[in-house]
């Protein structure tokens, strides 16, 4: 076993919107090659936490460290931080006026200064790896939801991020398409990608998460291995939430 290296360290993070506390003192550490799943009811603060890590929101207290340096430091350059983090949204957010290849090569070329030919070659490799080789010149609205989301994930990977954030990437997809996206995430786990994902797919969390965190009203109420959270949750609120999810599945 190699030495544990924390890639992401979240320390007592608070976030308010207006007078509402959306995150209340979140502590969380993510090691290299670790996959962390955030679960919790809608509105519990999962997206907000991911957006704070990507500096899309300014936190109101606490600190976030990436590879040992504080990214919430006032003097830190958010663009440099984001270059090291990939993020995938629930609604894909592909650029509709660009082809798949242009979507993927935009950041490597413009933000990372990779030459066009090399960026395209790497993009094509990624597309081939995830079974989308024939879609390189297609526009996003010509793709199915599952394909669009796979392209969005590839776009986030193209800059070789240190950390990948995925926010309910399967929630907008119908069940038949969920599988193809989950497969990509599994493959990323195999390849050792460090990931934090907010998800409603308990099956996925159980499968790939090294650590599962349960958020409840902006508080990280419980964290543990998937095994422990799903079979023997300590908090009654966690048990209640999992029961509700299970009941919904049965219907």
């Amino acid at each position: 076993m190699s030495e544990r290296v924390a890639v992401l360290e979240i320390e007592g993070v608070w976030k308010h919107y207006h007078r509402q506390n959306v995150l209340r003192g979140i502590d969380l550490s993510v090691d290299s090659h670790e996959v962390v799943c955030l679960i919790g009811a809608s509105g519990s603060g999962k997206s907000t936490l991911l957006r704070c890590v990507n500096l899309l929101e300014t936190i109101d207290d606490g600190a976030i460290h990436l590879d040992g340096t504080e990214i919430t430091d006032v003097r830190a350059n958010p663009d440099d931080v984001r270059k090291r983090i990939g993020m995938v949204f629930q609604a894909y957010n592909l650029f509709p006026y660009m082809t798949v290849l242009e979507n993927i090569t935009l950041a490597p070329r413009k933000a990372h200064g990779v030459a066009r030919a090399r960026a395209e070659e790497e993009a094509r490799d990624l597309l081939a790896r995830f079974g989308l080789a024939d879609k390189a010149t297609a526009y996003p609205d010509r793709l199915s939801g599952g394909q669009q989301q796979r392209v969005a994930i590839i776009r986030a990977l193209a800059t070789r991020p240190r950390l990948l954030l995925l926010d309910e990437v399967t929630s907008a997809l119908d069940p038949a398409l969920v599988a193809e996206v989950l497969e990509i995430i599994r493959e990323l786990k195999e390849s050792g990608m460090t990931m934090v994902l907010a998800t409603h797919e308990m099956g996925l969390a159980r499968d790939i998460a090294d650590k599962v965190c349960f958020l409840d009203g902006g508080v990280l109420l419980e964290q543990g291995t998937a095994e422990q959270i799903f079979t023997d949750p300590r908090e009654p609120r966690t048990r209640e939430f999992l029961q509700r999810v299970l009941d919904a599945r049965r219907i």
Partner: protein
Amino acid sequence: MSDPVSGAVTAPVDGKAWVKSDRQRERERLRRRRDLRSSSIATASTIVFFVLVVWLFTASPGWPRVKETFFDLGQFAGAFPDVLRGFLLNIKIFLIAEPLILVVGLLVALVRNLHAPVFFPLRSLAVLYTDIFRGVPTILVIYLVGFGLPALQLQGMPSDFATLGIIALTLSYGGYVAEVFRSGIDSVHPSQRAAARSLGLTHGQSMRFVVLPQAVRRVVPPLLNDFVSLQKDTALVATIGPLEALRQAQIHAADTFNYTPYLAAALLFILLTIPMARFTDYLAARSQRRRGM
């Protein structure tokens, strides 16, 4: 519950209270210092810029002469009351023309969006209208309407030049505004129309209740931009005679060979357009905020 931004403690919903940490206090201090630094830099560079511009002008060889003919305080005071009185007519023209233009523009845009074959003649008329009135310079439209319409000697045709000016401006700007509305309508995603039609709303109802509310919100900034332009173009009506601000300034300038009255008119126009420009900025900022930027 104290304010989360300035206060130190917020009451918890259940149990966990926020006490502002030293780290956050330090971060806010750094942020304030950075803001102070950037605003001082902004102030300093603004002052340097204006000092340079003023120096450039006043140091030019022709400055004493320009100062005399354009910046004569006595002339300014003498002409100002008349120019201001004229300017009230500009405002009146603007206030009457603006709602008329909105109505004409919206109607033309809606007609251009009627796709049924029966409406072909109406639709081509609308196309012809926008093509003509966006193509002909506004000042020409004012001439043609101002001198052409009365010459027809039709029953009930207004002969007062301010009214004719309003008609000309409405015709000219109606063409622009129709295109603004039309691009707004086209920018609403087709799925919105499909959703409305699938609920059983007619074409008209979908337009009225689903498409237009979104389209109009989107075109408010370019519309306001057109209206700033209209405020200035009310001065073009001077060419057919009514005593508005520019005409009054011309009269004073012609008497004395001093151009300060023009400056007075310019000042009044600026004073009118600035609030409109700030209002446009405000609306743009608000819609950005609403979309969560």
